[in-house]
């Protein structure tokens, strides 16, 4: 079986699963989640196989499929793996079975609908990463909306409807401008090449005037900054996270938040290089502001879920910082940080969910000393918290360290030549985020796990075997990336190099200056 077929199988398996779910017997829930779990597990195994087969040191797409789809508009069904999306696909596939396993106790009504939506969401997320055609990318991007809308709205907390409507309107508002930009790019490609095309490779080759690029970049930036989310467009995130059921939060933090950064990586920067360079200081400032502001907000929250949610804003700021450094290390670091944050925040949201299922409380004030009552829970919580802080040997360290290194490398030449101190100042401020991260995480750990033991409703039971398995998988992945990231970095290196060349290559527009 060829790899391209397997890749298509990976993408479409969840759809097959979602279509099979309504056929299952109505009375019992067990077959539903068994099916969903089986689909996700098979998908994960196939992705791992592809990961192993993925050749490092080779430029371009691997295992690609390209079939004309809407010929009149030059839209093709074009998917493939490259170094940029490889790790993100792996992350998505890894979280799939874990989310299904984690949802078994959390989701108690409309079970079929939930797993169907989860599978559709998985399909849309993988599709967004795999798409090599802007139109296809947009379709998958928007297809994530309805499943997430229902997941938060049906199985969420008390203010779920407010949260989910806010989430959808924010996202839809951002992506509608992106749609206009997508159409514009399609028309521009048509004009430039004489044939309609939405292929990324064709769009990269476009040479657009700077004012046009700037407008397009604004449209894309709005959509992406909302998704990341970066300040000042982050206010939907705490609401969505707090109200979402914990499997929903895991998906949201683990994968959905990566979409914005991936959008910048795949579209914004390479397609509109001059405008992107022009706006780099602004975007970098927003990234650093997100790092610090998110961390400060996380520091003062009382709701555990909100702490993790705000820490996400902070951590995603590093991703942007790494991308905008235009350095090999920074770009690789950004990808690593995306994966690392996906694993760590998923783990933390799982743990908050597990605590909530036992006690129906999330306020930090009512808990204390859980280490005495739930030693295994405390152990996993400690490990995840330390990874979040960026302790060496965890993936958090690899990601943040590479990003900061890249940021300093990028800032240094301008500083030495006395041209600009701005980038260096921003990079230094970003380091501050690491310290703030330690502050809020250690505060959370101290108040939750240590001190006199208390919890509403008496002593909660420690983790079950199912829960331990979920967390152990995540922790294992976190330490693998922390201790031995080489195979992962190696697979993405060539793509990052090509990508950097694509960004830094002087375009004719610049040469003319």
């Amino acid at each position, binding site marked *: 079986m060829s790899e391209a077929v397997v890749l298509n199988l990976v993408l479409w398996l969840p759809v097959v699963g979602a279509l099979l779910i309504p056929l299952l017997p109505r009375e019992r829930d067990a077959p539903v989640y068994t099916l969903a779990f089986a689909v996700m597990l098979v998908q994960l195994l196939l992705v791992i196989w592809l990961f192993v087969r993925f050749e490092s040191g080779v430029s371009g797409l691997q295992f690609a499929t390209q079939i004309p789809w809407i010929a009149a508009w030059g839209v093709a069904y074009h998917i493939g793996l490259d170094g940029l999306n490889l790790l993100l696909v792996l992350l998505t596939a890894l979280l799939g079975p874990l989310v299904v396993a984690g949802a078994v106790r959390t989701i108690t009504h409309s079970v079929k609908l939930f797993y169907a939506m989860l599978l559709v969401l998985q399909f849309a997320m993988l599709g967004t990463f795999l798409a090599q055609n802007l139109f296809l990318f947009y379709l998958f991007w928007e297809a994530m909306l309805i499943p997430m809308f229902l997941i938060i709205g*049906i199985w969420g907390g008390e203010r779920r*409807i407010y949260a989910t409507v806010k989430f*959808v309107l924010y996202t839809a508002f951002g992506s509608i401008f992106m*749609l*206009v930009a997508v*159409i*514009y790019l399609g028309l521009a490609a048509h004009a430039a090449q004489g044939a309609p095309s939405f292929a990324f490779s064709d769009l990269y080759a476009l040479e657009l005037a700077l004012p046009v690029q700037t407008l397009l970049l604004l449209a894309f930036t709005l959509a992406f900054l909302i998704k990341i989310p970066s300040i000042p467009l982050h206010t939907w995130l705490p609401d969505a996270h707090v109200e979402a059921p914990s499997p929903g939060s895991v998906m949201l933090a683990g994968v959905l938040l990566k979409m914005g950064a991936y959008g910048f990586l795949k579209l914004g920067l390479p397609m509109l290089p001059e405008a992107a360079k022009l706006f780099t200081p602004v975007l970098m400032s927003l990234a650093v502001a997100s790092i610090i502001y998110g961390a400060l907000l996380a520091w003062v929250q009382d709701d555990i879920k909100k702490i993790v949610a705000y820490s996400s804003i902070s951590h995603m700021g590093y991703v942007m910082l790494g991308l905008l450094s235009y350095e090999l290390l920074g770009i690789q670091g950004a990808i690593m940080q995306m994966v690392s944050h996906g694993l760590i925040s998923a783990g933390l949201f799982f743990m908050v969910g597990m605590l909530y299922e036992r006690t129906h409380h999330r306020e930090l004030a009512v808990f204390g000393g859980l280490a005495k009552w739930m030693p295994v829970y405390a152990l996993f919580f400690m490990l995840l918290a330390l990874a979040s802080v960026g302790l060496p040997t965890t993936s958090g360290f690899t990601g943040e360290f590479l990003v900061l290194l890249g940021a300093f490398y990028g800032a240094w030449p301008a500083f030495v030549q006395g041209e600009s101190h701005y980038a260096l100042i921003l990079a230094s401020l970003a380091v501050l985020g690491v310290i703030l991260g330690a502050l809020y995480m250690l505060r959370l750990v101290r108040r939750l796990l240590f001190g006199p033991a208390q919890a509403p409703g008496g002593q909660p039971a420690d983790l079950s075997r199912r829960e331990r398995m979920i967390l152990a998988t995540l922790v294992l992945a976190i330490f693998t990336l922390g201790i031995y990231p080489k195979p992962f970095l190696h697979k993405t290196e060539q793509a990052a190099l090509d990508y950097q060349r694509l960004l830094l290559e002087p375009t004719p527009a610049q040469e003319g200056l």
Partner: protein
Amino acid sequence: MTFELPDFSLAAAELWLLTLGCALLMLAVFVSAQRHTLLYGLSQFTLAGALGWVWWSAPESRSLTFNHHYVADDLATLLKSAVLLLTAVSLIYTRSYLERRPHLPRAEFYVLILFAVLGMFIMISAHSLLTLYLGLELLALCLYALVALNREHPPALEAAMKFFVLGALASGLLLYGMSIVYGLTGTLELHTLAAHLSDPASLPDPGSLTHLAWGFALTFLLVGLAFKLGAVPFHAWVPDVYEGAMTPVTLFIGSVSKLAALALVLRLLIEGLGALAVDWQGMLMILAVLSLTLGNLAAIAQHNLKRMLAYSTIAHIGFVTLALFAATPAGYHAALFYILVYALTAAGAFGVLLALSGEHEAQTLDDLQGLNHHHPWLAFLMLVLMASMAGLPPLLGFYAKLIVLQALLDQGHLALALYAVIFSVIGAFYYLRVIKRMYFDTPTHAATPRPARDLTLALSLNGLLLIALGLLPGLLLALTHAVF
């Protein structure tokens, strides 16, 4: 002047509809209204036969007959097929509704529907101002009567009265505009009119008296058209009629009749007065912008679903007008595509309401509350329909919006395109509210009986078609593209 025998075969479908419509009218005198199945079956047979005739008589190339008053072309074949299919589907949706309400005059319902279809056919194939007007009036009179059909229901009578008075006024304005055009050009035929205008010498000089007369003519024509389309500020009848009429009639007005309204605009403005595009474009833009704004904003405030869909229609008409405003073949193509998609989606949405109507007529958001608990499949279909109306990919409604935006951006109308997309996000809010009521809220009333099997089947096909064509939009695009 020589007399030539018209080529009747080109109008075979119209003749068939006329004959069978009259036959049904006669039959209704002798047959008890209780024999519903007979009337229903005969109507469906008539529609199916007409479809056969439409395809059989479709000419290879554009042909004129009846002294150039009648045209048969690809546009006509496409729109007529769509009208017939959607009418047939509407009748399937309506059957059990009528069966539950023996007090409604059934035979008259079917006869009026068939004659309305005939009126639409004449509009679609009209090639002169006279035939256009004839078809329009036949359709309009049938619609007035259909709205008033439920005569024990006061709001229906009020709606019918309003519809009739305003409709007559609009027809008068349209007729007045046509008479000025006739006065200026001395012709009723659309192609002679177009030929007259395509001669640069005959184009009115700006500022001249003739130009002023053309301005008057276009204004009257556009007011009449805007009324028939339901564009703001000539929309006042739309919400009342949608709400007052019984749901089957609303379904017919809201979905099928919009196809004929577009045909009217395409024939008159584009085929006839295309050379004056510069003069009517501005007016269309105002209509489009106002419709998008008012339609989307007013829909948010509605609790009655039929009223909400009325305002949403107005918003969709705004999109269609925007596509026509582009005044390029791509724009006309977009308008045609949009209206087909809209008619299909609207038919499904009213179909869901009909499926939920037992003794009580389902028409408010409360009737949909918690639908997912009672009828998960219906709720899913409604989800698809609403998401398609909101323009969420990969459903068909998304492509309709996309192709309109493409036509606009191609002409460099960036601001209008942005305006349209911003209002479609605002529009998404009230469609999402329907989804919210169905899925997030718990039901407050008992389950309605299971809808009839043929209704469920047709509705499923309707909903799934939006997904299937969303995945393969090339099929419908190729179909509509062949027309222009």
